[in-house]
């Protein structure tokens, strides 16, 4: 959890504690009052008993009975008052809390902020690279080994939301090209490392035992194709990642958004072919989870990138 979200949680907790403390104080006062009333009642009862003992029945019948009746009546009233007080306190707390949640707490409707998510590309890149390398005769690499070459391949997606109304506002989504390039470079370097390793094995099998270290193999590839292994794979092997243009067509854009019943609707106003996207969302603290995309009929549209977890940056 980020620092900001921790602070927000802390302040919310302290507020609740203050309110609880106040209510507890109120309750304790009521309890004290009840105790005092009980003591008073006991005193009265004792007085009645003493008087009855000193003055057996009939001696001062009117006053003793009167006092006794007064004592019982007083007990009932006190109990009633205590129960009512407790009920009132509880209701007050609950009402206050509900009011707070409904009107004052941010809840899941205010999505304002700069959010960032990561598109994980490791699996896709590893599977594509593996499929190409498996064509090599006599040598092989497992998917696990391929994935160990390709770790943490992610592309950043930036989403900025600004609430301008009760349940909506404006948004801007963007894939930074530098993030895409970094991921692409890392993917192809991993691909090249795996290819060089398998090439080295084939060179040894073909009787070229000398000069099969990574540098020697790289030099051989450059001599053969006139370019580095990474450049050759970029040019001739299948693409490990979707094109930047394809991703930008899917994610980049700006417009207005609205939230209702867990659906985030984004209306693009930048002339793209798909003008509106509806996604199920959940906001939890400083995390915004877009779990799936729905069409206008509410049916789920499959996409490999869901669920997307955005983290609040600002």
């Amino acid at each position, binding site marked *: 959890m980020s620092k900001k979200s921790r602070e927000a949680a802390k302040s919310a907790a302290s507020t609740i504690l203050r309110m609880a403390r106040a209510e507890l104080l109120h309750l304790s006062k009521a309890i004290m009052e009840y105790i005092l009333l009980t003591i008073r009642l006991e005193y009265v009862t004792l007085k009645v008993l003493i008087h009855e003992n000193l003055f057996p029945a009939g001696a001062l019948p009117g006053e003793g009975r009167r006092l006794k009746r007064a004592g019982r009546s007083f007990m009932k009233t006190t109990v009633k008052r205590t129960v009512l007080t407790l009920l009132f306190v509880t209701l007050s707390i609950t009402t206050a809390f509900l009011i707070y949640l409904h009107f004052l707490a941010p809840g899941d409707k205010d999505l304002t902020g700069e959010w960032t998510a990561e598109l994980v590309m490791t699996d896709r890149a590893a599977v594509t690279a593996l499929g*190409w*390398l*498996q*064509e*090599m*005769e*006599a040598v092989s690499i497992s998917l696990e080994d391929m994935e160990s070459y390709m770790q943490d391949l992610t592309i950043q997606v930036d989403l900025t939301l600004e609430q301008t109304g009760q349940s909506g506002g404006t948004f801007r989504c963007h894939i930074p090209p530098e993030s895409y390039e970094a991921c692409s470079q890392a993917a192809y370097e991993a691909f090249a490392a795996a*290819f060089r390793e398998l*090439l080295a094995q*084939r*060179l*040894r*099998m*073909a*009787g*070229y035992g000398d000069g099969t270290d990574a540098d020697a193999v790289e030099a*051989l*590839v450059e*001599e*053969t*194709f006139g370019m580095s292994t990474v450049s*050759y794979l970029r*040019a*001739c*092997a299948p693409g490990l990642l979707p094109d930047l243009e394809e991703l930008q067509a899917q994610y980049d854009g700006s417009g207005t958004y609205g939230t209702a019943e867990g659906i985030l609707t984004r209306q693009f106003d930048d002339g793209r072919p798909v003008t509106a996207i509806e996604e199920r969302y959940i906001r939890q603290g400083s995390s915004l989870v877009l779990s799936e995309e729905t069409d206008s009929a509410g049916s789920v549209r499959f996409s490999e990138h869901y669920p997307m977890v955005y983290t609040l940056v600002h």
Partner: protein
Amino acid sequence: MKQLMRKFIRKASSFFLSMILICSIPSVRVCAGFEIPGTCQVQADSGAFYPVKTLDYGYDHNTYFSLRDIAMILRDTDRRFSLDIAKSAVSLNLGEAYSPVGTENVPWEDRENPDISLRRNECSVNGQKVFYYTLIMKLPSGNYDCFMMAVDLAMILDADLAVPAAGSLQINTQEAFRISPENLEQAGYFYGVNSVLAGDATTGEIYYQYQSDTPYSIASTTKLMTCLLAMEAIAAGRISSEEEITISDAAQRLSASDDGVIPMEAGEQITVQDLLVGALLPSSNECALCLAERIAGSEEAFVQRMNQKAQELGLSQAVFYNSHGLPCYTEDQIPSKIQNHMSAGDMFRLVSYLLKVYPQITDITSMEDATLSYHDIEVRNSNPLLYNMPEVTGLKTGTTNNAGACLVTSLAADNGTEEHDLVVIVLGTEDSIERGRVSGLLARYALQTFRTGGEEPEEGTAARAPLPLPTHAEAAVDWILRTAKKAHVTEQ
């Protein structure tokens, strides 16, 4: 007296009868047509027809042509050649003027009765030894003439042939030698062959195939699988090529049998490299057995590995019973004679894999001869095509009664922009003569197809475009291995 007379008459009759029989043998022989003299009208391009002496060997139309007669016809063309013919050797020098001896382009004399036999006389072209079957006969003048099949001569001269009419032949000196296997198949040329296949091992493309899905006995071409497993073991570090192996009793027994090739003594040491050379060049069965025993502990275990490898490579019709390809018998009450078998398609897949992963095998199979470090035994390559075509790099012959004469050939083809390994597989020809001829024809067809794409380029079209970079992993590996090979050769 009467008895004496009877004895004398019996003996005289026997004597005269024997003389008659002896004197009739040549006549019978001539009448049987073992080499039947004939004449064919031959023209160069669209020039005049000239008579060329021919010999039909054993059968009508199994025709061998007089080289002197043809040399005379071609002496003023681009395909001229000179001849030097001795009792058992013939030498052609392409491009040189022919010197006539006076017997050219004249019919057979009545008294001529060729007494020659078809064999592999020493034959060279431009000083390079080649491997063709020829008939050499002595002329009355004291010179010799050599007879060769027209198609063999056409392949040497790289000239196209045509048959304009029955009893005539046209040699097109302006056209390169071309064949169409499809036409040959229609004419029944492959009827006497089990199966054939010609293709590109680098790309997997098959240029031509005939009955390539049917399994046939493969004889000693089995040793290609044996050597594949040996190279795998070397690459994996389980054995080394310099390692010395102790010859077993079983190997000695095989060596001493009728199927033995290299004499071996049990208990002596021989290197793995010697065993590979021995198995691949002269097709030594005992060398294959030694390799099998060393790699797997026993031949039975090795055969299991062979079958397992066949399965891994997808050789669906391949079954192995031993490491060398000789026939063997089952242990049933009525034993069955069994032999290793696979289809030509399987063999193509096996050889393509071998050439891609262990290209160094052609360093061995391209040698015409070698000397083993084991007792300095000299061995010679049994592959006939190795001597006839410079592009040939291997691979293996095989012959048994059941399998017929088999040959797996690899060629290094270069069309100016790329280099590929081509493969020709011929299984089950009648004899070694036919095996060499069929393989030679298909090898030239494979080269022709690779270099031209199967079609003649149109006039005025641009030269072949620069080759694009390979987009498949194995093709990329092939390019890189060739670069490594060139670098390796340069260093040496």
